């Protein structure tokens, strides 16, 4: 039932793209930066999207191509055709703008690097390309320095995890902070939801209680079950396994969606990868918390 993709080949392609575009896939940088209109360019404190919310809805197309990657010498032009739809982008842009609004309400006015913003390298780290990740992390750190950034505000768990781990690979004095540590809820919301935790926020980065606190303060009632949404029991969505084996990744998503459906037909997520991975399997409504409580 399981068949691992040709990972060395995939690694080479990722590194090649990162070296050329600071992105793992060839992406039109305007897709990444289109959400920000009036944020100052650069500055001490920047919001850092790593293009995750923007591009994630289109990544599924790449994943489908990956098993046959070695036979595609011309993957680049193909990849260029893969673009999130207008409605997917509108949703991503709204989420990012909501996060900025919440930061501003907390007195933080971040800058942004627009199309100069690099990708974090998370995919290399998560696939186990540690040496390649080290090299790439060095490049990103010098780019941040060059742009004068001192404090980086991340907005998704994979980027936050990659950046907090840079220190193990390259010495730097950048301050890495996640937006959840800086904001309060800005909207009162009523109703019941269940929650799918981000593995990284919940079990590696110590942010589980932060977002649960915000959700509950906003008025939302979370429907929980120790065997499904407990810290030790809540399963991964399966998304990070996509580049390795899409079939198994989907099977995990299917299992996860089935469990969550038992609790509620309305689901909150805190990660763009979880959203995209669970969407085809969850029978109900899925929302990012940044769409709901800000």
């Amino acid at each position, binding site marked *: 039932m399981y068949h691992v993709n040709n990972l060395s080949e995939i690694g080479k392609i990722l590194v090649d793209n990162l070296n050329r575009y600071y992105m793992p896939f060839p992406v039109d940088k305007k897709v990444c930066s289109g959400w920000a209109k009036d944020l100052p360019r650069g500055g001490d404190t920047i919001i850092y999207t790593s293009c995750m919310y923007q591009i994630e809805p289109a990544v599924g197309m790449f994943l489908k191509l990956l098993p046959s990657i070695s036979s595609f010498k011309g993957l680049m032009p193909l990849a260029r055709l893969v673009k999130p739809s207008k409605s997917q982008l509108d949703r991503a842009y709204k989420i990012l703008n909501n996060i900025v609004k919440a930061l501003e309400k907390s007195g933080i006015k971040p800058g942004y690097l627009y199309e100069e913003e690099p990708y974090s390298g998370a995919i290399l780290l998560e696939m*186990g390309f540690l040496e390649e990740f080290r090299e790439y992390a060095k490049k990103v750190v010098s780019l941040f320095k060059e742009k004068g950034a001192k404090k980086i505000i991340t907005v998704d768990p994979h980027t936050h995890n990659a950046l907090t781990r840079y220190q193990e690979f390259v010495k730097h004095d950048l301050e890495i902070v996640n937006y959840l540590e800086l904001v309060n809820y800005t909207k009162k919301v009523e109703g019941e939801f269940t929650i799918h935790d981000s593995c990284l926020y919940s079990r590696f980065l110590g942010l589980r209680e932060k977002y649960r606190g915000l959700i509950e303060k906003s008025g939302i009632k979370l429907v929980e079950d120790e065997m499904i949404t407990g810290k030790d029991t809540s399963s*991964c969505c399966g998304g990070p396994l996509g580049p390795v084996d899409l079939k198994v990744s989907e099977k995990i998503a299917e299992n996860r969606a089935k469990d969550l459906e038992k609790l509620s037909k309305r689901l909150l997520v805190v990660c763009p990868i979880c959203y995209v991975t669970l969407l085809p399997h969850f029978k109900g409504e899925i929302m990012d918390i940044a769409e709901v409580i800000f």
Partner: protein
Amino acid sequence: MLSWDIAVNRAINNAVPKVYKVLSEHPYVEELAKRLREAKLEVLNNLEKYVEETLQSVKNNGGNAYYVHDEKEAQEIVGKIVGKGKIVVMGKSMVAYELGIRKYLESLGNEVWETDLGEFLIQQANEPPSHIIAPAIHMTKESVGKLLKEKLGGVDENSKVEDMVAVVRKFLRDKFVKADVGITGANAIAADTGSVLLVENEGNIRFTTVAPQIHIAIAGVEKILPTLADAMIEPLVQSAYAGLYPPTYVNLTSGPSSTADIEHNRVRPAHGPKEFHLILVDNGRVKANKDSVLREALLCIRCGRCHFHCPIYRAIGNIWGDPPYSGPMGAMWSYIVKGDAKPAMYCVHSGNCKEVCPMRINIPRVLEHIKNLGLHSQTKM
């Protein structure tokens, strides 16, 4: 639903709450687990010294002790001790499986029986084990009934579990009585006394270690603990984190059977085995111990708790990893003993395993390291 999904969901729903209950009712177990980790690290930091001490202690007790580097050496020694045309009973041993001991002894013309119920079932079905302490977890009650109907008779797919167990009990009792050699693993080995600790519920290990005239214990070097006091902790911690607490039996064996009933003179043998052999196994462990990240995997006590919290195991478990090593611990151990990095590639770093591991092994970090090694070398992928 596929039969694996049904079987694993049943097992998770049974096992996971049981462990939480055991830990809340016996809070000292967590303290013992911490102490066990420290004691195991002490051995790993001075492995050579403790291997020497263990070998000597076993000899002091009148036993035989060997150190083997690989599968071939292990098979040769076991083959020499057992010989040909014997009846051998085995108490579940992952290391014996790792080294192909059963198949090898069969090839020499011996009759070999697994005596752990789960292991017996997979021997009968000729399938690999799917969980470190519950090897037949992939089989539903119905499929077990069907298998036993074919192999032993007396039950079928609609029979009660109690009746299925009774059929196997009757069959194996005869083998225990007739067996020439008993082979087991070891949950822990005390370096200072050469004692072997074994934890179980069925009573098959007791039978295996006492009824035949020869007892062979096979274990990885990572099972050594500095003292008997440390070694005694392991069965408690292992059974608690497996959700099977208190364990029904804990067996301690220090050399061949003995008596001191005449003038308080300790002489061997008495009623139990005349011969005791301990085979300490390297097979990749010593190399792993030299790598500061991989070393963590050697702390694993095989409680199998990580399996039940792992989304990958739940999705593909019974075929994920190199038998007998499945699940998150198996993804580490497949690399240590087989050089196979492929199972590690499947880690989604959900992190549940590290949360529940009694030995506090940061399994996702070990697997990340294995991924990197696998991607940058010519190891099996």
